[in-house]
């Protein structure tokens, strides 16, 4: 065991898999010599050579397409899209190609590729370095979408994605790369080393896809969150004293419906939190699922606490970001019904 930040844990996952499987390789913009702008691929080129960890031209369309071709060959490429905001040129290759090749060829060809991308705001990144486009992936048949919230989960989930025989979208909450940011931007962020989930085994382990994690058991209200928002939701529970059950979804598709239903049937109340814009966001899907499965156990309307339906603002970042006070208000509304 070692104490790792999320960046170190992700690097360890790649290192572990490149060590175990010669078919695993990684590339992307600035990924090789420099080790990535967030340093997730640091030292991998030195250790495994430039054929297994290399720089790509600034062309996300090409990066994704080349990975599709490599995966069809039989490799397990892991590509880095430098920011999720740069994903759009790759979208056609992910949606029309990677996601559908198994189906359209009736299993003749498969695409075991992993697409890593840092997402989310709260880093003064403006509208082109802060977006959360997860629902653009969860809407696509044939893709799996995974978002970790701790170093331990990040490593175990990334290894599961790399070993998965279908294309996986692995979104990294970059605001918590170096510490579990709780949504209070004016307070000091504690480093990962003070968090239990920074204890990360050096070797191989997996966290299964499709399994959520109850990070705070509670009775009063179910809070569904993922990525950075798990920590913001925990802070909201702590700050308010509301006995919330906070569920970290970890995998958005396929989502762990059993854990969600069991919790909402117990609490009768549900608040959904995400940083992405609200309309047609993943929270809409969660809200529909809770309604379909738990309608007769619900004691209050389902609430969504999300980013607003605006581009991500630069100077007003903390007005946009779903902070603990906004989550507390929502929890109060549903628990005071």
């Amino acid at each position, binding site marked *: 065991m070692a104490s790792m930040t999320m960046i170190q844990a992700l690097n360890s996952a790649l290192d572990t898999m490149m060590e175990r499987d010669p078919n695993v*390789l990684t590339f992307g913009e600035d990924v090789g010599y420099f080790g990535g702008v967030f340093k997730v691929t640091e030292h991998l080129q030195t250790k495994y050579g430039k*054929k297994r960890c290399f720089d*790509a*031209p600034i*062309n996300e*369309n*090409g990066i994704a*397409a*080349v*990975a*599709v*071709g*490599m*995966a*069809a*060959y*039989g*490799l397990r*490429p892991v590509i880095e899209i430098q920011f999720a905001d740069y994903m759009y*040129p790759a979208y*056609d*290759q992910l949606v*029309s*190609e990677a996601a559908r*090749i*198994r*189906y*359209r*060829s*009736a*299993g*003749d*060809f*498969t695409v075991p590729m992993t697409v890593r991308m840092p997402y989310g705001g709260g880093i003064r990144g403006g509208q082109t370095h802060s977006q959360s486009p997860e629902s653009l992936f969860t809407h696509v*048949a*044939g893709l*799996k979408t995974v978002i970790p919230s701790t170093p331990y989960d990040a490593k175990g989930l990334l290894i599961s994605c790399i070993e998965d*025989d*279908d294309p996986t979208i692995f979104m990294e909450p970059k605001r918590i790369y170096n510490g579990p940011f709780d949504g209070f931007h004016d307070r000091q962020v504690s480093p990962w080393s003070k968090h239990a989930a920074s204890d990360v085994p050096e070797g191989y382990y997996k966290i299964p896809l*499709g399994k959520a994690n109850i990070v705070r058991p509670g009775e009063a209200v179910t809070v569904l969150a993922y990525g950075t928002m798990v920590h913001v939701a925990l802070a909201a529970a702590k700050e308010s004293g509301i006995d919330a059950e906070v569920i970290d979804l970890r995998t958005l*598709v*396929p*989502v762990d*419906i059993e854990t969600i239903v069991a919790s909402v049937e117990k609490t009768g109340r549900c608040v959904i939190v995400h940083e992405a814009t609200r309309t047609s966001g993943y929270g809409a899907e969660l809200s529909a699922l809770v309604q379909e499965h738990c309608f007769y156990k619900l004691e209050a309307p389902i609430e969504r606490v999300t980013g607003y339906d605006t581009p991500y603002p630069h100077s007003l970042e903390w007005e946009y970001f779903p902070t603990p006070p906004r989550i507390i208000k929502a929890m109060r509304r549903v628990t005071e019904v």
Partner: protein
Amino acid sequence: MDDMSSRKPNALDLHVPAPRARPGDKPDFSGWSFPEPGDTPRPDIDEPAHDLREYAYGLIRVMDMEGNALGPWTPQISPEKLRRAINYMLLTRAYDERMHRAQRQGKTSFYMQCLGEEAIAIAQTMALNADDMCFPSYRQQGILIARDYPLIDMMHQVYSNASDPMKGRQLPVMYSSKKDAFFTISGNLATQVPQAVGWAMASAYSGDGRIASTWLGEGSTAEGDFHAAMTFAAVYKAPVIINVVNNQWAISSFQGIAGGENTTFAARGVGYGMPPLRVDGNDFLAVYAVTQWAAARARANLGPTLIEHFSYRAGPHSTSDDPARYRPGDEARMWPLGDPIERLKTHLISLGEWSEEQHKAAHEAALETVRTTGREAEKVGVLGPEAPPTHTRASMFEDVYKEMPWHLRQQRDEHGV
């Protein structure tokens, strides 16, 4: 806008390219000039790309119109192999003709012929190794035919019937056959080109000896995917052949809409530092020869080649368009570089290795093959307006993922299957 008095003295004017001839006009190929067959030198395969730029603006030709093979590009092909080639071309044309008609008879939803372009896929497949990986567009059915893929399975796919290897999932002609090194056809344009580059990079990464070859139309060279492919192929010296089939028409848009007014499509290779070969796509021997050259270069780890095949789409784009609505009806007949089957036939006869009688018999045999195979396929089923789908309804939910997740199981159950 037309009021000239209100125009500024320095008024600009927007240029929108237009073809020389539309329906009702006479086909106009005046001013076109091509190098004579045999006149283009053949460089060594290790010639640096910057010394090959002139090939982008010429045209590699081997056969003259009398069937003589001329010059340094003349490939060494046995008469037996050439007879096999003409049989494949005849079979492809007969197959196309029957399946096009089957769509007209309401037996399937859609079809696409490769009429006039048969030499390209067939010569290239015969010049490549059987395990070189092909990433085709939708008009290279000749690859499967030249790899002796069962014709009946192609028909099953077009009919989306119970024996369709794609389980009725894909539009007709979107074949896939991994064992024949034939990648699943997308239907979205040019997406296969950078994928072929990735496959080729993976082959090089793995120390494999196989190369990749990919095809796209001149119209889809305008797609970003083509330029992504060119960049990655050039940067990583991927062992891949990128084939632009310039058949002059992208549905109703002439090649000028894709940029062909100002330069050749082969010249796209110049900017990427890639050997740009431009070849008469209706000349079987020339296509074979340039493919051999590009394949040898790729196998020598010298990287990719861009080939523009100058040809003409003699049929409609698909069963969904009528070319008489957008181009002169006799343009195909007037095409200055002839018909690929007729030209190979003339060559074989001039060699004394073929005759009119043999050709007629081969043509009849091809028609008979598609007739009998077609009847067999139709016995299994067709996709007519009254024919029910022959796959289980539950199969719709399969192969989305390797293992079916709960939400698809639930939707399948809701659907009652």
